[in-house]
């Protein structure tokens, strides 16, 4: 199912009586989601991503804008007629029902010609259970299961009606770190097997980057960038997207462009072209540093963290906006820890410039 959100806006009336202005949760949001893909809707808490999901689901009515499924306007349809399955953040499994009854629940709601016989229901329930690999837990109550198992049941319950769109609201936030890794692979596998268009909401960029076909970065209700995870990471449109994606996060400096030279503080780090003279934010990915004895960027070394595969050099620079600068270099290179200064050369592709005023990206060419 291709999902198209056109100019979607959601305003909530202000709870504070003294403030007349409505709170805008989602602001003129336009997005086309291709069929059969796994989409990660990403943004910091309170950015409106859950509201957007609820509007796709039909739990919230948009204030403005339309929603299309395969070109058909479904904005005014109630959730049950949209063919969506939803997995809630705390799973919302009915605690008084067994796993089997929970998964069967949506099927029992079907009326008229869609009504299924007991046998058909059982088959569908077992098929969904098999897909998420919980066949041996059918008699358990939700309270007798681990978080990961509950998550699977919730996915099975969302999938049992064979929805056209599967929606997941922060599906991994209630799981511990190890289970989270496992479950996100699981979600990927289930999505591949069923080929159902899946939209999941998360504030964890790593989670979104690792399994999504496409990520959508949101902030304050506004869509900032969409694209394949690597594309968005390599080529962010503004400072927010650059800072939001990547662990460890991007290092930011205040710098300036003067006569085709990029300056970070007192260091003339790069010769660039195509950028008029101005003050800029400079973002450098941790992997964008090359340890070099006569490198142009001179930092004060704080410490070196060796992490097996690679080494992370923590340092400081007078022009740095971030508290410390973290650069990741291959562990084969030796860092002279006796020297209080450490010098780097920069990889142009990992060095990003942003306008000081608008925080929009400034593209440049390297001479």
């Amino acid at each position, binding site marked *: 199912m291709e999902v198209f959100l056109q100019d979607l806006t959601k305003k909530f009336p202000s709870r504070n009586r003294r403030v007349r202005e409505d709170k805008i949760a989602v602001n003129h949001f336009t997005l086309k989601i291709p069929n059969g893909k796994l989409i990660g809707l990403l943004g910091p808490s309170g950015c409106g991503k859950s509201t957007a999901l609820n509007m796709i689901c039909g739990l919230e009515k948009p204030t403005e804008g339309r929603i299309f499924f395969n070109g058909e306007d479904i904005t005014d349809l109630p959730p*049950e*007629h949209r063919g*969506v399955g939803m997995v*809630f953040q705390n799973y*919302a499994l009915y*605690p*008084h029902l067994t796993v089997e009854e929970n998964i069967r*629940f949506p099927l*029992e709601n079907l009326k008229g010609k869609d009504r299924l016989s007991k046998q058909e229901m059982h088959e569908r329930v077992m098929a969904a259970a098999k897909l998420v690999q919980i066949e041996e837990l059918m008699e358990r109550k939700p309270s007798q299961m681990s978080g990961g198992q509950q998550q699977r049941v919730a996915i099975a319950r969302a999938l049992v009606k064979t929805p056209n769109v599967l929606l997941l609201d922060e599906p991994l936030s209630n799981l511990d770190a190890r289970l989270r890794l496992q479950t996100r692979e699981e979600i990927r596998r289930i999505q591949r097997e069923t080929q159902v268009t899946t939209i999941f909401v998360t504030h964890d960029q790593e989670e979104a980057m690792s399994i999504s076909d496409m990520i959508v970065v949101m902030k304050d209700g506004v869509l900032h960038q969409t694209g394949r995870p690597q594309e968005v990471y390599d080529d962010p449109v503004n400072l927010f997207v650059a800072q939001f994606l990547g662990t460890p996060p991007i290092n930011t400096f205040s710098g300036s462009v003067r006569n085709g030279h990029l300056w970070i503080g007192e260091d003339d780090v790069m010769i660039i072209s195509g950028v008029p003279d101005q003050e800029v934010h400079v973002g450098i990915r941790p992997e964008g540093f090359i340890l070099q004895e006569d490198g142009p960027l001179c930092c004060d070394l704080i410490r070196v963290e060796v992490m097996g595969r690679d080494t992370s050099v923590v340092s400081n620079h007078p022009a740095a906006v971030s508290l410390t600068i973290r650069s990741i270099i291959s562990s084969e290179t030796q860092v002279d820890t006796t020297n209080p200064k450490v010098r780097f050369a920069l990889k142009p592709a990992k060095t990003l410039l942003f306008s000081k005023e608008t925080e929009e990206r400034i593209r440049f060419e390297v001479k």
Partner: protein
Amino acid sequence: MKNNNWKGWLYLIPAILFLGIFMVYPLIDVFVYSFEEGYNSASQTFFGVGLYNYRYVLRDPYFLQALKNTFILVIITVPISTGLALLISVGLSSIKPLKELFQTIYFLPYVTNTLAVGLVFMILFNKTAYTDGMINLVIKWFGGQAVDFIHGPYWAKMFVLCFYTIWVVLPFKILILTSALASVNPQFYSAARVDGTSKGRIFWKITVPMISPMLFYLIITGFIGAFKVYSDAVAIFGTDLNQAGMNTIVGFIYDMLYGDSGGYPSYASAAAIILFAVVLTITCINLLVSKKHVYYE
């Protein structure tokens, strides 16, 4: 561990003494009196021991009337008041504007005095030589016949008593149920909505099971409370309930002790033990039924 045992008992002594003297001892005493024929509390004497008191009480037409009245009251008021409370609570939880106001209004009867309100009920329903009373005016306005609810036919009197009892117990039940409903995670309702669950199915399959412990608590205490009704009847029909034919079991016990026909602690004890047996039986049945239908988290 064993050496410290006496300490535990030491801490328990105040509670054990208090409960023993003021609860366990009287209970045993009532049980003993019920088997002592013609016990006299002034002279502390009795004629013999046996089941005579029970035989007498169970043949006393006033007791049988009281038993019948109590059973009718219980069977009518407990389901209706619980059902009505559930309906009102669900209504209260689903409205937004004026919710607090309505909650306050529904809770008001709880803080009013039973006897005073009983008097108001009596005046509303009463039919005298001078006036038919408010309720009868309404009945006549709809083209009905005026009924004397206080001195008239049995069903009319029973209706007033049931109506009043329901009115009195409703606020507490509403209070409990609204808080139980508020504690249900709204995500369950969202999940049900996504699956297109009908309102009725949401109510019976999600809401009721989720609040079933509270519902069950209300049903059990409702049964026990209704079996012990006395003051409500007095408030409406006056102290001579036997004459009005509206006595209850507790009323009968009181009459046997202090009423005009009183001074028979043995009979009162026997009646009290019978009431205890009835309540125990009903509560056990309730517990058995609940095992299947009540869900505890």
